[in-house]
């Protein structure tokens, strides 16, 4: 890849090595701040989850088989993204697109299931303004869902970029950043699954 340097060269030395490692580390730091964000929403849920204001409890509202399915789908999508990254590292454009696509479908299925759950709750009257429990539930699970949705949009964008430009240092770095994001979302879900759904069912 030839770089046409402008007459006034302000590039630092590292940039000519097309190394995305600083970008990736910076993105990791962002992920760390996102952990803090989620942890506080979790803490809020833990404080408020028994405050049902006369309404139904977690145990009465959540379907465990449904949640297990959702969980397995998201977990599998984290695995398939891993397979996508293995293809990226081998500069295999076709296999990369394939596994990104599979990951996307799984992620979209997860969101569809979640929207279905939310819609049912809402239409049965168990909406976020019903009680502190439900407010904190929708905030926590909804924030996670928004993150997943953003990831899906980002994934589509990267699939287009890879189709158009192939696997370049730039697209490689971007895919690596999305991989941190996507794996992180499954890790947060471990705790949503455990603290919201499993604890709710005990």
């Amino acid at each position, binding site marked *: 890849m030839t770089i046409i340097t402008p007459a006034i060269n302000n590039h630092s030395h590292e940039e000519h*090595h*097309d*190394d*995305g*490692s*600083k*970008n*990736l*580390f910076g993105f*990791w*730091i962002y992920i*760390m701040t996102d*952990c*803090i964000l989620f*942890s*506080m929403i*979790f*803490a809020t849920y*833990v*404080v408020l989850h028994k405050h049902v204001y006369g309404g139904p409890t977690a145990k009465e509202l959540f379907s*465990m088989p449904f949640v*297990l399915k959702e*969980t*397995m789908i998201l*977990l*599998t999508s*984290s*695995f398939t993204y*891993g*397979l996508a*990254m*293995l293809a990226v*590292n081998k*500069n295999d454009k076709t296999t990369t697109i394939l596994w990104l696509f599979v990951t996307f479908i799984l992620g979209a299925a997860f969101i569809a299931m979640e929207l279905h759950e939310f819609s049912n709750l809402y239409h049965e009257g168990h909406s976020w303004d019903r009680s502190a429990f439900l407010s904190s539930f929708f905030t926590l699970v909804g924030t996670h869902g928004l993150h997943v949705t953003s990831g899906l949009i980002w994934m589509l964008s990267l699939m287009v970029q890879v189709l158009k430009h192939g696997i370049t*240092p730039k697209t*490689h770095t971007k895919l*690596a950043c999305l991989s*941190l994001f996507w*794996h*992180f979302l*499954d*890790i947060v879900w*471990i*705790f949503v*699954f*455990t*603290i919201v759904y*499993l*604890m709710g*069912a*005990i």
Partner: protein
Amino acid sequence: MSNLHHNSGSAHGSTKSYIIGFILSIILTLIPYYLVVNHTLNMQSAYITILVFAVLQLLVQVIFFLHLSGDSSQRWNLLAFIFTLVVLLILVVGSLWIMWNLDYNMMDH
């Protein structure tokens, strides 16, 4: 393009590590799930058990999916992660303590 493989920001997995991570995660999900839905344990044991399994699965996914390790290429990532955990523990434990304390002091004694 070969310098990509010396990209110190990312560690690389292998098919094997992803498969191991995936299978372990499935197991670490199913065990607490069935313990809970079958009401196998008493309440307190159940709470502790599922939290332990959650932490174990966190570690599995951080190691096998995120490739976090003590390797020189991962050292700054690991440091940032540990620091985040420290801050997080202070925030979460501190908040829960404060709110529990508030709740307790507001009761009719």
